[in-house]
């Protein structure tokens, strides 16, 4: 529709998605800051048990109250930020890398490699995501490391599909044809020209995937396959705090708000990036 002169006449708003990016970015940076420096600034051991002071409501000594074992909730939430941010990153990155490599190879080279990899994709997607993650974690045993293994085994599929589709489109793009015509080596074209362009939807998807990973982690905690105690992971804090909700409203509320705000940060950044990069989800 560029023929019309309408869309070109409109000065393209380069600031598209900026509000989302700035709010989402600030949320994430704030959490990153809190995760890195929070625990040492506060200086309270998140695993310090005080059996005399269990389930105390927020007050001067414990700003966000204490939990069922008398541990300081604020200290646990701050330490939990490390776990949850790490979880989002480690839960997203390996599947992303595997998926990108598989998808690129599959989409750009095609042929029998593509056929085999896509059958693998078909097999993997036939399993419902959460059930497969639960099954794998159940098999390997609970804990963060096995959770990441499960995510890597299951999560790559979405990335591979996304990037394969992009690869198929880009393969026909004129600037890629041009690069081939100029005699660049295939792998150079793949990594220098195809990949950067194919990564925009991946970046957008990864942000919302981070939220899914956090939720999956929390759900695993709920069915008893979460992180090893006493690791202060937010989802497990919520799940473990469940039985005590009637005794103290603060126990699940604060980790819940922490998780929601980090999730909000990721989703806003995802939206913002989508707007900025012109990615359709």
């Amino acid at each position: 529709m560029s023929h019309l002169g309408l869309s070109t006449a409109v000065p393209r708003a380069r600031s598209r998605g900026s509000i989302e990016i700035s709010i989402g970015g600030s949320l994430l940076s704030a959490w990153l800051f809190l995760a890195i420096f929070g625990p040492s600034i506060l200086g309270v051991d998140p695993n310090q048990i005080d059996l005399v002071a269990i389930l105390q409501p927020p007050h001067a000594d414990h700003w966000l109250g204490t939990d069922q074992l008398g541990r300081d909730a604020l200290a646990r939430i701050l330490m939990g930020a490390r776990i949850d941010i790490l979880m989002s990153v480690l839960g997203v990155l390996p599947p992303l890398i595997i998926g990108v490599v598989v998808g690129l190879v599959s989409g750009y080279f095609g042929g029998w490699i593509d056929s085999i990899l896509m059958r693998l994709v078909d097999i993997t997607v036939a399993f419902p995501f959460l059930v497969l993650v639960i099954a794998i974690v159940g098999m390997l045993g609970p804990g963060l490391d096995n959770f990441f293994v499960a995510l890597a085994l299951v999560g790559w599929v979405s990335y591979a599909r996304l990037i394969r589709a992009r690869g198929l489109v880009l393969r026909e793009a004129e600037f890629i044809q041009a690069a081939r015509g100029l005699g660049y080596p295939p792998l150079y074209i793949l990594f220098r020209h195809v990949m950067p362009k194919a990564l925009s939807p991946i970046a957008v998807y990864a942000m919302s995937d981070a939220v899914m990973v956090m939720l999956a982690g929390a759900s695993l905690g709920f069915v008893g396959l979460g992180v090893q105690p006493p690791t202060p992971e937010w989802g497990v804090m919520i799940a473990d705090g469940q039985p005590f909700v009637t005794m103290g409203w603060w126990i699940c509320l604060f980790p819940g708000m922490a998780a929601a705000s980090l999730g909000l940060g990721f989703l806003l950044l995802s939206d913002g990036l989508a707007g900025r990069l012109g990615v359709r989800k």
Partner: protein
Amino acid sequence: MSRIPAIGLRLVQLLPVLIGITIVTFLLVKLSPGDPVRLMLGDRATEETVAAVRAQLGFDLPLWKQYLSYAGNLLQGDLGQSIRYRLPVLDLILGVMPRTLFLATYVLVLSIPATVILSVVAARHAGKPVDQIIRILSVIGMTIPVFWLGIMLARFLGVELGLFPVSGYGDGFIDHLHHLFLPALSTSVWLVPMLVRNLRASILEQMEADYVVASRAKGLPARYIFGRHILPNSLLPTLNLLGVMIAFLIGGSVIVEIVYAVPGLGGLMIEAVLARDYTVIQGLTLFYALGTVIVTLSVDLISTWIDPRVQL
């Protein structure tokens, strides 16, 4: 044109995938640590007893023999016997499946209208306060853990207000609707935001499509264009997402099923995993795979019906 041969061919193409699935689950379960017999016999069984039962169940055979016998039984329609319950796996699965299917359908019945309405409202007021509110609610819906929401809904709507039962499945259609309302609602709260985000974006994209201008040039009213042109075109990508989501729902209702004590496929799966009930895990996996295949096939069929460009 008749689509029967096409569907048949699709099924044939899926055979290697199905075989792959059985191999993957078989290995996944077999190579993992933990002894199912121990769980089956309880705390105080002796080692001799455990060994005897293992031998009886054929767990001492080489892996490939175990797989072959499993695959052979499958071909005869025999999914084997639950190690834990000593009941045919097929009976166990068929016994709980209707509940999960009912729940999944219920979720869809709640979610699809909500998705369409919310997306349409959001897209038509893109950038305005209504849109922002829907968006914020979506984000909240997506970030709240389902089990947390489930327990809160049960406490508030179920216990405090006494509007809905907080557990079980009920007897009879109306009773099912009543019992499964909260589980379905809890799931929808998570599902709808995902679909809304997708459909809203899709509608906004279609609203800028050339044929919309062309339709306006024909003098068609905006509302007609929206309903007759923009919406059907927008639904296609969301339909594909929905297909993925249904497959997810059928198995992924685990958490909700546990919170609301709805004995369904998800709960059976978790129990089977925790108890290492190999045969049940394998049977369920096969069912999930079949379910996914059927859903994907249906989505494809609906797509060809909506969009003549799509070929099977």
